[in-house]
């Protein structure tokens, strides 16, 4: 079985390399048969990665400890569920997962291309009158994009057959595997890596389409196809962003409930590795709209999509190597060189391509006014990319100083917190402002109509908060910012529903439903902005107003934290449910407030048969206003036990905001009802007309407020 997996990887490498060449040659020569063969190669590559992945899964579940990877991450006693998740617990396996997803995406892209081609006829892209220009562009771009995706696969195949071999055998076969680290035995740890990788890998698709558009040259129809890459990849980009968001949020949740330090974000390099591409990806989602609607920021979008892709590769490297984990450890040097080589190759290649094709990425028109959606998007992009840069710089700072100064200097959470505070606040306020500022040119009157109420609401809130001595001031500013965004979004839903109810004679609820489902992108986007405000509330509340106490208690004694009293009742032990062989010691503790008992919690220590150190399982009394977070730190002489108790205000709003973010993004991604889609298609055709002719004035009559997103 390991030989089969290994063989599948070698075959995959050859087939993937072949498909790159076949697609490149076939597309350049315009030879349909060679392209068809390359297409077969793409699908065959997916088959081989699937075979390799199933081999590894099989070995993990079966527990073939002659394979090094299996011995390291699986064990006999592990529940099958976690045996499967051991697939991505280590370096080799997670690189295989990356590759598997990438080849699946490449196959999806090439199939979409084939479908589009058969709908268009023999590549007749000029015939935009009969087929939708989008379909025609898809037919032209998809096979090209698939070629680029396959080229990326070649890199990962190379890693998997040279430096990170998942199927390598051990010289001595151990009796049992080491098993998963207990910290990873959490349902969150099953979702988190997969979601993060779905996001990471997903950004490769828009990148590949961007390159495809850039390499089209001057063949007939190239102009239209080039203008379409942003639109064609909108769903890919948005889904990748959604998965990455889910990955980050589940990671935070896991850290909060599992790591037992009461926080959810530590500015750890591994966390930063997922945040940085998320920030640039967020910028891309916004700036892509500028290109889609107005033909602006083409060069910027190309840079952003490239940067985001590079950052996902960088993030994969960071999380799966030792480069930042310890002082003076250079980690897996060979792996590092491979990644560095690949990153440099992509940078040089893309920059070269951009220089060669710079004429094709000039903007269709300049930005028209200072107060417009264009400039507000530009500002949000600058801030998001600036934040990404700050986090990136802090993350690689030890590596930079190690190489330049010969000694390692790190920056702590203080650095990130100080910087992310002003940037985060500015981004929050923009999340309220941006959606409602009109394209092209906004008037003061437009601003007043849209923002007077939210602005006054935020001001009143801030004033009251300050009068009631809520401190620090920046926290009040953050909450007021969230109020501003919240009121803006709610008002926009209400206003839209009222207008529609009046004009269509519908009841307001039905009007709201129709309004939103016919403008999914717009209202989905509003929901995501609202979710950002909720998350900001949660982050502000929990980081500013957290209180904690640590004390050693005897049974019957209690400790006070904030308004809460935690009483230690008794200590007991049992075999952990669902986990034979694991013994847990738990302390029954009653949580009360003003003399009224709210709950009895059982924080624990778990003792694993093959590990020296116990693991801590915290107990949390969750609530909308605050979480009471109880840690059993250890047992002392007799029945005495040490407890650390934290009251974390408003944490729940991070998770609620997270759910809303997922819902909002999903809402925006869901296919639009037909009638509305036709309208969008009209917009697209107009834009193509503009892109094609170059001289047609901007779509008339859509200047103020009409078309916010």
């Amino acid at each position, binding site marked *: 079985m390991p030989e089969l997996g290994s063989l599948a990887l070698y075959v995959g490498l050859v087939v993937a390399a072949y498909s790159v060449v076949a697609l490149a040659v076939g597309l350049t020569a315009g030879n349909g048969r060679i392209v068809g063969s390359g297409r077969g190669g793409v699908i065959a590559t997916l088959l081989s990665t699937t075979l390799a992945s199933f081999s590894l899964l099989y070995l993990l579940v079966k527990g073939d400890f002659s394979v090094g990877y299996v011995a390291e991450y699986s064990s006999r006693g592990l529940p099958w569920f976690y045996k499967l998740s051991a697939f991505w617990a280590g370096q080799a396996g997670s690189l295989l997962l990356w590759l598997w997803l990438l080849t699946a995406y490449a196959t999806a892209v090439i199939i979409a291309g084939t479908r589009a081609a058969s709908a268009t006829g023999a590549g007749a892209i000029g015939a935009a009158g009969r087929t939708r220009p989008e379909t025609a562009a898809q037919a032209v771009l998809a096979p090209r994009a698939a070629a680029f995706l396959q080229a990326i696969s070649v890199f990962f195949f190379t890693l998997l057959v040279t430096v990170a071999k998942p199927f390598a055998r051990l010289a001595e076969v151990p009796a049992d595997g080491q098993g998963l680290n207990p910290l990873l035995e959490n349902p969150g740890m099953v979702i988190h890596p997969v979601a993060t990788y779905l996001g990471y890998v997903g950004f490769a698709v828009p990148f590949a389409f961007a390159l495809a558009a850039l390499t089209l040259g001057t063949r007939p129809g190239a102009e239209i196809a080039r203008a379409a890459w942003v639109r064609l990849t909108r769903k890919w980009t948005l889904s990748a962003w959604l998965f990455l968001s889910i990955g980050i949020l589940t990671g935070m949740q896991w850290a909060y409930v599992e790591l*037992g330090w009461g926080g959810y974000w530590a500015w750890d390099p591994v966390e930063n590795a997922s945040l940085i591409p998320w920030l640039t990806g967020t910028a891309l989602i916004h700036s892509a709209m500028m290109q889609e609607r107005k033909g602006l920021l083409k060069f910027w979008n190309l840079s952003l999509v490239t940067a985001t892709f590079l950052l996902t590769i960088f993030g994969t490297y960071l999380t799966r190597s030792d480069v930042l984990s310890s002082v003076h450890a250079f980690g897996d040097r060979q792996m590092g060189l491979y990644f560095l080589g690949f990153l440099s190759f992509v940078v040089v290649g893309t920059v070269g391509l951009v220089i060669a094709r710079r004429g094709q990425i000039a903007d269709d028109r300049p930005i028209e006014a200072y107060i417009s959606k264009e400039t507000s998007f530009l500002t949000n992009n600058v801030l998001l990319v*600036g934040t990404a840069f700050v986090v990136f710089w*802090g993350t690689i*700072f030890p590596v930079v100083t190690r190489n330049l100064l010969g000694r390692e200097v*790190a920056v702590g959470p203080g650095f990130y917190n100080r910087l992310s505070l002003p940037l985060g606040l500015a981004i929050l306020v923009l999340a309220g402002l941006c959606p409602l500022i009109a394209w092209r040119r906004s008037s003061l009157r437009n601003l007043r109509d849209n923002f007077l109420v939210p602005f006054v609401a935020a001001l009143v809130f801030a004033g009251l908060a300050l009068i009631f001595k809520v401190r620090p001031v920046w926290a009040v500013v953050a909450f007021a910012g969230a109020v501003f965004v919240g009121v803006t979004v709610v008002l926009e839903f209400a206003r839209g529903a009222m207008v529609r109810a009046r004009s269509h004679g519908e009841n307001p609820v039905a009007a709201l439903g129709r309004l939103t489902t016919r403008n999914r992108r717009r209202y989905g986007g509003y929901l995501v902005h609202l979710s950002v405000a909720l998350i900001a509330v949660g982050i502000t509340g929990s980081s500013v107003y957290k209180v904690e106490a640590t004390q050693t208690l005897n049974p019957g004694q209690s400790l006070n934290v904030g308004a809460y009293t935690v009483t230690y009742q008794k200590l007991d032990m049992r075999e952990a449910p669902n986990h034979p062989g694991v013994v847990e010691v738990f302390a029954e503790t009653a949580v009360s407030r003003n003399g009224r008992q709210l709950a009895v919690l059982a924080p624990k220590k778990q003792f694993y048969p093959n590990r020296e150190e116990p693991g801590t399982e915290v107990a949390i009394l969750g609530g909308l206003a605050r979480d009471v977070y109880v840690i059993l730190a250890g047992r002392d002489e007799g029945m*005495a036990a040490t407890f650390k108790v934290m009251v974390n205000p408003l944490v729940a709003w991070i998770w609620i905001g997270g759910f809303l973010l997922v819902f909002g993004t999903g809402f925006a991604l869901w296919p639009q009802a037909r009638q509305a889609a036709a309208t969008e298609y009209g917009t697209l055709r107009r834009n193509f007309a503009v892109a094609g002719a170059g001289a047609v004035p901007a779509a008339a009559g859509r200047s103020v407020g009409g078309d916010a997103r």
Partner: protein
Amino acid sequence: MNKRTRIAIGVAVIFVALGYLVFTGVARSATYYLTVGEIKAKGASMIGRSVRVTGKLDGASLKWDPTKIVLTFDLTDPAAGGSRVSAVYHGIRPDGMDDGRDIVIEGKLTDQGSFDVKNILVKCPSKYEAQPAGGK
């Protein structure tokens, strides 16, 4: 001055402000990242400066005072002739502090020669790939 230039200036201003924040942020929160051997070698010059120190936990030295909530332990550096630093941490013991595990501590060296720990980072072996044998 046309619009394009002005917008470019606006963007540049934001970036300069950001650069300033980054620069001062680094200056204020930069901490040296040292091994136990290095901090010992630097001696008194490191007293009172905020540093991160990495070393191996000596499990036998680990002591816990439940009434005062104080955890004391030694980190050693086998690569530097077994030099050691005694650390004092006012807080609870994090998971994974096994004998011989690589630990990173953040804090300051006091003039008594012990290390006042603000933060303990236990390296999670599954989060990062383990060093291959003899890889250092």
